[in-house]
C-alpha cells in the first residue's frame, strides 16, 4: 500500500506526500514490521533529540520538538502504569523525516511525531508487540 499518498490516508495534511507508510495511524508516518528470527526482548522507544544549529539548512529532531516528545511519552507511559523503556538518542539518522521515534526490537519507526500524538503512538507500539495499552 502506498500510504501517505493522500491526506486522508495519512490522517492529516501535514505528512509529506513522499513518505510511504505501512500503517498510517495518525498525523505522522509509521513503519511497523515483524521481528526477524531471534530478535526478542521488551519493547523500547527511542526518541531522537539531536539539535543542530537553526541555520535554515540543517534540520534536526531536537529543534523540532524531540525533547518534548520524549517527556510526553514518559508522562503518558507513567500515567498508564507501563514499564516500557523510553530513551533519548543523539541522532537516529533520519533527520529530514523527524521528529523520529524508533521502536525496537525490530525495524519500526514513527516519523513526523508531535507531542500530541504520543498516546496513539504508544497504542500502536504496544499493539505491535501484542501488549495491552495499560499496565
Amino acid at each position, binding site marked *: 500500500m502506498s500510504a501517505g499518498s493522500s491526506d486522508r490516508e495519512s490522517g492529516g495534511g501535514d505528512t509529506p506526500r513522499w513518505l*510511504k507508510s505501512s500503517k498510517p495511524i495518525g498525523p505522522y508516518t509509521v*513503519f511497523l514490521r515483524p521481528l526477524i528470527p531471534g530478535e526478542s*526482548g521488551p519493547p523500547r522507544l527511542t526518541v531522537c533529540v539531536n539539535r543542530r544549529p537553526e541555520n535554515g539548512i540543517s534540520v534536526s529532531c531536537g529543534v523540532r520538538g524531540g525533547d518534548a516528545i520524549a517527556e510526553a511519552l514518559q508522562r503518558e507511559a507513567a500515567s498508564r502504569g507501563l514499564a516500557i523503556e523510553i530513551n533519548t538518542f543523539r541522532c537516529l*539518522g533520519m533527520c529530514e523525516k523527524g521528529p523520529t521515534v*524508533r521502536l525496537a526490537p525490530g*525495524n519500526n519507526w514513527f516519523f513526523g511525531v508531535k507531542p500530541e500524538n504520543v498516546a496513539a503512538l504508544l497504542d500502536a507500539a504496544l499493539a505491535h508487540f501484542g501488549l495491552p495499552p495499560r499496565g
Partner: protein
Amino acid sequence: MAEALAPDAFKQAMLARIAGKRHGDRAIVRAIFEGKATRAQIGYLGVLFYHFTKHTPQVLSTIHSRCSDRKIRRRIMDVLIDEDTELRCGSAGHDVLAMDFATRFSGLTEAEVENHALPEAIGKMIDYRYKVAREMPIAIALGNSGIAGESHFADACRLLSEGLRKHYGVKDEDQESWIVHIEGDEEHGDNAFAAVCAHATTPALQEQMFWCIDNYLMHWANFWAESEKGALAPPRRQAAE
C-alpha cells in the same frame, strides 16, 4: 551478454548476485547478534570499520569530481555531507562515530585505532573502492556502493545493534555508528537500484555493474571474515605491563 537486460530483469539479476552474500548473512554479524562473538572480535570489527569508513568521503568526492551531471552531483554532495559532517545524518561525521565505537569497545586510544595494523585484505578493499571511484562510469561507481555495499547494510546494523545491546551491554549512545545506519524505509536502496537501472542500459554497462557487485561483495566477505579473526592489538599501556 548480447543485449541489455530490461530494467526489471536487470534489477532481479543484481539481486540474485547479492542473495546469500548479504552483510546480515555473515557469520560474525550473526555471532554478535546471538552473543557468541568474543569482545576481541567486536573490537577488531570496530577498528576495521573505522578504517573503512574514514575513506568514504574521499571515495565519494572522487566520484563527484568526475561527474558532469549537476543533479547527480547534488545527490552525491548530500551523501558526502551525511558521511563527512554532523549537518544531516548523525551527530558527527561517520568516521568520528566509527572511531567513537572502536575506542569505547576496544579500550584503545584514538591513536591506537588510527595506527592499528591492517590486514592485506582491508588494504585491497580500500584500493578497490578508489579504483572504482576513479575508473568506472559514474552510475556504476555509485551502484557499487549503493547496491553492493549499502542496500543491505541496514539489516546488518540492526542485528549488530541489538546483539551489542542485549549480550554485551553496549548502550545505544555508545553505538551510534551502527544505529545511524539502520534505515526506516527501503527508499535508500530502491533509489540506488532505480538510478543504476536508468543509466546502465547497455550490455557493457550492465556487465560492469555485475563485475562491481561480485567484486565488492567479495571484498565485504573478506572484511567480515577478517573481523572474525579478532586480531585486536592490546592497548599499549596494557602491553607494556
